[in-house]
């Protein structure tokens, strides 16, 4: 199981890789997680770092053949193997849809432009080598098709294993995830500023935490907003069990595990029209609410759920039915082609 590692950062992609190794082992396969650190800046070093994967020899280990390699996110799929399956979490989006946005990495110099093209060439070649190509969501598959013309089968990963349960539809909205700008937690804080009755718990760590705490202080949200930091599994399951709803509205997210986790705790999810992957599972008025990406719209959506607890429960329960369909048995079968 090949996975590009960003040291000290941990998110859904890391969980996916670790969970898959665990699930493979539980099914009596010998599985090992192979990681290589990846730093994506300066952008002109990306190709060199990717090449590290190409120089690895995973055909055999200690004289024993490695039957299958499963690679996930860029640049782990650059690895060579006669039986390579790619379960694409995401491409190096700075070279694609994030180029020339504030999240982009490449400048306008000839070298930068060509470095970006080199990533495309690398992707086209090494993804085409895969015996099977899966994507974790429609969103990821569509981006791949539109950027490189490569078709991927959609294989949504099951969420992490937690003690999911629903104890109540409490008085707070939960936000779970890494705290960086793309996750757009500030939208929730602005919504709390617009609605004096909204209580929020923000679970997670990340480089945006200081800015978010300053924003909360600026709006005098003390007492209504709690930053818990990273929660352990039990604490996270407990928060899911007690919250009213879950807010999850990153910008054009690949997939996001959070909606499925919320659903397994029978909680509706509030997201936005530009959230990308979450829109594949959050259906407006059926498993949650989909609103415009503005503080007022988010505040209104959450207020509606507060005042309609029966509908909140019904949406959460509908979500649970959807989430329960994703099983590791089916996932492993498709990845292994059995």
């Amino acid at each position: 199981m090949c996975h590009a590692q960003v040291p000290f950062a941990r998110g859904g992609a890391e969980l996916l890789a670790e969970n898959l190794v665990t699930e493979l082992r539980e099914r009596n396969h010998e599985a090992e997680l192979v990681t290589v650190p990846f730093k994506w800046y300066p952008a002109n070093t990306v190709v060199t770092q990717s090449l590290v994967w190409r120089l690895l020899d995973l055909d055999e280990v200690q004289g024993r053949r490695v039957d299958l390699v499963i690679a996930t996110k860029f640049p782990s799929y650059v690895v060579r193997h006669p039986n390579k399956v790619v379960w694409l979490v995401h491409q190096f989006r700075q070279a694609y849809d994030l180029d020339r946005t504030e999240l982009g990495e490449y400048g306008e110099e000839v070298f930068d432009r060509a470095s970006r093209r080199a990533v495309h060439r690398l992707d086209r070649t090494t993804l085409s080598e895969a015996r099977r190509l899966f994507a974790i969501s429609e969103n990821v598959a569509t981006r791949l098709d539109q950027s490189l013309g490569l078709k991927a089968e959609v294989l949504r990963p099951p969420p992490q294993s937690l003690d999911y349960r629903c104890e109540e539809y409490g008085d707070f909205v939960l936000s779970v995830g890494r705290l960086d700008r793309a996750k757009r937690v500030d939208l929730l804080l602005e919504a709390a500023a617009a609605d004096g009755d909204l209580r929020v718990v923000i679970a997670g760590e990340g480089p945006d935490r200081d800015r978010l705490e300053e924003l909360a202080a600026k709006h005098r949200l003390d007492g209504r907003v709690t930053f818990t930091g990273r929660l352990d599994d039990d604490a996270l399951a407990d928060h899911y069990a007690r919250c009213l709803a879950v807010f999850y509205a990153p910008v054009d997210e690949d997939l996001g595990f959070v909606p499925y986790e919320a659903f397994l705790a029978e909680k509706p999810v509030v997201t936005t029209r530009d959230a990308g992957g979450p829109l594949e599972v959050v259906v407006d008025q059926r498993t949650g609410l989909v609103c415009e990406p503005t503080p007022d719209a988010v505040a209104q959506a959450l207020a509606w759920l507060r005042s309609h607890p029966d509908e909140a429960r019904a949406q959460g329960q509908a979500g649970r039915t959807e989430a329960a369909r994703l099983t590791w048995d089916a996932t492993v079968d498709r990845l292994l082609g059995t």
Partner: protein
Amino acid sequence: MRVAYYSPLPPERSGIADYSAHLLPALEQRIDVKVARRRSRRPPRGCDVALYHLGNNPGAHEWIVEAFRRSPGVVVLHDVVLHHLVAGMTIARAKPEGYLDAMQRESGIVGRLLAHGVVDGLLQPLWEDRAADFPLTMWVVEPATGIIVHSHYAERCLRKLGFQRPVWVIPMPAWPVDVTASRTQAADLVIGCFGHMNTAKRLPQLLDAFARLHARRPGARLVLGGSPSPGIDLPGLVSACNLDDAVVRHDYLDEDSLWQQIADADVLVNLRSPTMGETSGMVVRALSLGKPLVVSDVGWFSELPNEVAVKVPVDERETEMLDRALEKLAADEQYRERMGKAAVAWARSEHDLDRTADLYVAVLEESVGLPQVEHAVLRDVAGAAAELGVDPDSSELTDVGARLREVGLGQERSTNS
């Protein structure tokens, strides 16, 4: 990125001039393009790369070849056989030595001897019927840092000729058009054939097949639109088939009239043999207007999807197969409609102008910068190796170069858009 752009442009009358006039605005939205003035000897200043459009017409392209030789760059090759261009630049300019060199470059001593025969008037000019056997393309394009072509057929031809630097395939862009049929002829079925009327258009075969169709369907009409080549007796060919009342000829059509004639036709026929590896602007126009096509099963034409074009072999069955194809199209209106819809969809996806312009930008960015990126990667790896005392020429570092080539980033890369 700043690009020097060499191409014939309107009012010059050439398909490549029309092509550039169509492409340039879309390119200029994406990158800084400096169009080189015709016959200018110096390249525009401060450009990162030069793009040279080359075709077979010496009058339109000779100055571009000269500029390209002074400062090689990326070539857009519109014809993979450049014999006419070379002959025009050499023999027609009283520089036979150039022609001898080109033929020797192509076919060794035999080629040189043949060239002598042509120059001395002892042999029939090779460009008349054997250009495809002696394309002379490499003599022109060898210094190119990379070549853009419009079909995979042309790409294969270049590889066969021995070109080893990058080759990119970028389809010809379709024109945005808004023309609707306003047919004035009283005809059950109108078949159109447009473009320069030369021997490669297979006119005797077309007229023969149409005569058979017309015998069964007297209401059918054939429209021939385009100037005939010298030596082609079009009226004589038509009369010989007793088709004077069923064939409508337009020796010249301006652009608006051409579009209208295509719009008014039910079916377009565009036969071709021999092919010089060219893409047909007429076919792309017909696709844009959703017209069912009948083409020869050669070169770029073979790459058209079966849903949009009936492909006729160039062999002893040609006339018979053409007759069958026309009969089927005449008899089945729904079949024509299905093909027409597929043609529009194909033109929108494959021949979309924005897609074409994006591909050009990708090629230009790659052609200028990828060697730098490759060099930087090898420098990084060699630097790390040197810290460990590994010789830069060691087999370990050779392996790194091999891996780079494996992922499409080595110097000998073969490329596709």
